[in-house]
């Protein structure tokens, strides 16, 4: 190909690219906009209303204004067990700044009688919720345990951590981000 032909082709490509960039500009803002509920970073955290072992109901959307760590766990899952003490430590340290931890036990695939002894043994002070039907797990598209969703004060998922156990520094950095 001759030099002139090449230069013409390159110029056309660049002009088309520039036109496409302007034509495809998103005037409406990002499509997620934190309005659609989905278990993904940048989306509204799907709402749930679950009961504690004592029968008290907790609804996620009622906690708007607080930063929330939603942790999905089961007693048979070793990494879930391993990270509970770290979560407790971080919760104790940051709860006065507005952190709430909701540890949702996957009761539908766990031994319901093993939950309370584990919570007592670990000395956990944050609310434990029971997902007895698997509906919450479906809404959060649970594929691996543990799964943690860091929800900011506006109810938007800031970060998702799949797998564990989470290191203390990871929990601390993520929690500080949602408390901002």
């Amino acid at each position, binding site marked *: 190909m001759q030099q002139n032909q090449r230069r013409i082709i390159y110029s056309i490509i660049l002009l088309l690219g520039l036109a496409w960039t302007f034509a495809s500009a998103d005037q409406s803002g990002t499509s997620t906009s934190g309005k659609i509920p989905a278990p993904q970073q940048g989306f509204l955290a799907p709402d749930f209303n679950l009961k504690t072992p004592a029968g008290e109901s907790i609804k996620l959307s009622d906690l708007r204004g607080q930063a929330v760590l939603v942790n999905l766990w089961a007693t048979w899952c070793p990494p879930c067990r391993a990270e509970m003490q770290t979560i407790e430590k971080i919760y104790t340290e940051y709860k006065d700044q507005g952190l709430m931890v909701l540890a949702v036990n996957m009761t539908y695939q766990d031994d319901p009688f093993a939950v309370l002894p584990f919570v007592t043994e670990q000395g956990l002070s944050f609310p434990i919720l029971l997902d007895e039907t698997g509906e919450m797990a479906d809404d959060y598209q649970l594929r*691996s345990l543990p799964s943690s969703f860091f929800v900011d004060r506006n109810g938007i998922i800031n970060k998702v951590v799949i797998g564990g156990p989470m290191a203390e520094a990871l929990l601390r950095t993520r929690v500080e981000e949602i408390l901002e």
Partner: protein
Amino acid sequence: MVSLFRSLFAPPRHLILPLAALWVGLALAEKRTGRHGISKETLNNLVYYSILGYILGGRVLYALSHFSAFAQSPLSLFSPNPDLFDPFAALMSSLLVGFVYGQRQKLSLWPALDALTPFFATLAIGLSLTHLAGGTAFGSPTNSTWGVDLWGATRHPSQIYELIASLLILGLIWFRKTDSPSGVSFLTFAALTAAARLFLEAFRGDSTLIFGGLRLAQVIAWITLLATLALLESGFQREKS
């Protein structure tokens, strides 16, 4: 088939995909090292040191940027958790390590980049598969019949667009003529990748927007395209003279 793939490689298992791409890419690059005057051993070392730079740089720089959190739990530095990682810092660190190794081995820049091109092209395929498995880099909502249900809406299958583009680019790079000047193979790959990103970013639902709703990735891709085309042209001129 897509749902089966997504179930099979659901996070955190999706991390196996870039690793597999790395292995395949290195094997492909090894097959062509002779054409660029680089030994297989040198190419392997270059890649391994760069990967080491990527892993260590990504973790150490993440720790430095979150110093207070790590100061309270220094053992977190050795946690296997992949989220304690800064991908951009990792990339910079890996480029720096690769550059230093190349200098020490007296490697010429363009032949080395040409030799690595199949490796980069395969990594791009691995990255798009990782996006597909994790549901990241998702598309904007659409009414198209080929839209996929993801994150609460019917969306452009942007990860599949990305996969098709990266497969085509690897094919073009692999089967292109071999008598071109030094650097052309890598620059062609870079230009095609930038052009694909420029075009496909328009269908993404997670773009970072800058003034006037412009998509940042498109602006960067356009500048990259401009630079690669200019370098390609100067390469042809050098060859001619």
